[in-house]
């Protein structure tokens, strides 16, 4: 993987952001969001291969596929909430960041409930 590519882009963008932050804070926020999106766009492409590998292994181990898809959904929500939260913190908007992360947690909780119910049913069936 080309870590040097990411490092180069980050450093260049860092200089540009600090140049713009002095006069216009809003440009710095937008630019940091775009750089984050650009780097993650490339990384998420790689992540797709990892996910197909995991699903293949899960099928081999006869794990139920919708549990696995829930796990990936939860990972996605957590990652996106973190992404937005960090950008808000960069712009010194901690209150906004906390609200976004709270929303992420609640969504994840909603996704986790069916899995919990399924586990409970299995456990109760044993006794």
């Amino acid at each position: 993987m080309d870590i040097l590519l990411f490092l180069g882009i980050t450093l260049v963008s860092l200089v540009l952001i600090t140049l713009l932050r002095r006069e216009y804070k809003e440009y710095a926020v937008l630019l940091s969001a775009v750089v984050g999106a650009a780097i993650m766009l490339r990384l998420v492409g790689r992540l797709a291969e990892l996910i197909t590998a995991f699903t293949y292994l899960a099928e081999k181990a006869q794990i139920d596929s919708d549990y696995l898809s829930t796990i990936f959904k939860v990972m996605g929500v957590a990652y996106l909430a973190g992404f937005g939260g960090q950008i808000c913190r960069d712009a010194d908007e901690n209150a906004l960041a906390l609200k976004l992360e709270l929303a992420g947690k609640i969504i994840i909780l909603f996704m986790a409930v069916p899995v919990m119910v399924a586990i409970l049913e299995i456990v109760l069936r044993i006794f």
Partner: protein
Amino acid sequence: MMPEVDLIFKIAGVGVLILLLNILFKQAGKDEYAYILTLVGVVVVFIVAIQMIQRFFQEVRAVFGL
């Protein structure tokens, strides 16, 4: 990877350009134009940024199945 990097430089270029033009406007004494120019700059950069972020969100949605 190249289109993303071009986008980053485009946004930074717009920002620096707006910065320079504002200084010129301030010296020429037309402050209201300077402020309007800042708003126009923000809108342009916003549009460009939104396109990039939208591509990123679509990619994440596709990968994680959200």
